[in-house]
């Protein structure tokens, strides 16, 4: 069985995964995205940086911290017929909040009211329709970057003007959500192969609760309602290994906020007591066995 892990570098998560693979008796090839130099016209029998042909891999686990590199590599590998975790299709949906919203909507999964607009004038209109406070997000991006809670029309105008001034055209796509008045926490649930294996509360006095931004993690029991919405959300984006961010509104209703396809989990095994790295490896080996 041949497995490769694509990485930008070795973070705590990748080290945990490599240790879990070793405990399973597998030594995957670690391929750095900086070493990639692929002939796009040639096929999968060309050599990977590991020295092995790409076609020799039963499964490739994509763990790049660079979203763009990861997406392109998944596109290439899947086009060549090589199984990846996750699939390009799932990663493409999850890496784009607008695509995620559409997928969840099609599947009838509960989520905040969300609108899109492309000009300053229509963005103001979208924010007014959602109502204050609203949340403006880039459609791509992570770790809470450039999220803005918009409390009134003055701040809406200021943020839109700043976004217009930023050079990248992506900032001119205005993805607007209603603000969910959550109880000082949100939920991150880990879904692997359609199973909700564990979940944490991410608590913070700030409305952005990402642990990358200082939110603290504690165990969140998996209730039937949480399990149900997470399984349906995972299926909506094509399944695989996913971290699903869930909001609780003031009535206790659950709403899907976003879905991450190369999840970080270093802070989540201790509070939940679930060895997430071992679960990932188990799933990867099962996927590889399907091919081998």
């Amino acid at each position, binding site marked *: 069985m041949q497995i490769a892990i694509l990485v930008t570098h070795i973070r705590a998560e990748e080290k945990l995964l490599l240790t879990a693979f070793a405990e399973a008796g597998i030594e995957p090839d670690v391929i750095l995205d900086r070493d990639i130099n692929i002939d796009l016209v040639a096929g999968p029998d060309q050599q990977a940086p590991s020295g092995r042909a790409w076609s020799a891999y039963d499964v490739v686990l994509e763990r790049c911290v660079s979203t763009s590199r990861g997406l392109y590599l998944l596109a290439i590998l899947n086009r060549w017929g090589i199984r990846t975790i996750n699939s390009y299709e799932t990663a493409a949906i999850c890496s784009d909040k607008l695509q995620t919203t559409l997928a969840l909507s099609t599947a009838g999964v509960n989520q905040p009211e969300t609108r899109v607009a492309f000009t300053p004038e229509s963005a103001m209109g979208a924010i007014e329709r959602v109502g204050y406070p609203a949340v403006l997000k880039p459609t791509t*991006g992570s770790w809470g970057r450039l999220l803005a809670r918009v409390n009134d029309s003055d701040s809406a105008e200021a943020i839109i003007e700043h976004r217009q001034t930023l050079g990248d055209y992506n900032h001119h796509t205005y993805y607007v959500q209603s603000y969910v008045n959550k109880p000082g926490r949100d939920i991150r649930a880990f879904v692997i192969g359609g199973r909700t294996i564990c979940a944490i509360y991410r608590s913070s006095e700030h409305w952005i609760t990402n642990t990358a931004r200082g939110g603290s993690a504690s165990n969140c029991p998996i209730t039937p309602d949480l399990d149900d919405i997470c399984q349906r959300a995972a299926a909506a984006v094509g399944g695989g290994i996913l971290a699903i961010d869930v909001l609780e509104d003031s009535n206790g209703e659950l709403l899907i906020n976003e879905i991450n396809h190369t999840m970080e989990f270093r802070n989540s095994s201790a509070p939940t007591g679930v060895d997430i790295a071992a679960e990932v490896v188990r799933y990867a080996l099962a996927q590889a066995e399907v091919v081998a």
Partner: protein
Amino acid sequence: MNQTVSCVECDAELNVPADAMENELISCPDCGVELEILSLNPLTIDLAPEVEEDWGE
């Protein structure tokens, strides 16, 4: 066995654990800068790449 190396930013002495891996990220306990282990033999480190706009999960 742990090895030591000097931080390329502040010159503090860093302990690199025995289970360290090539391309692993480590932090300098003195100045907090993020470093990448480029090679284990000989032990070589450099500043980790700057976080880019598309980095995340």
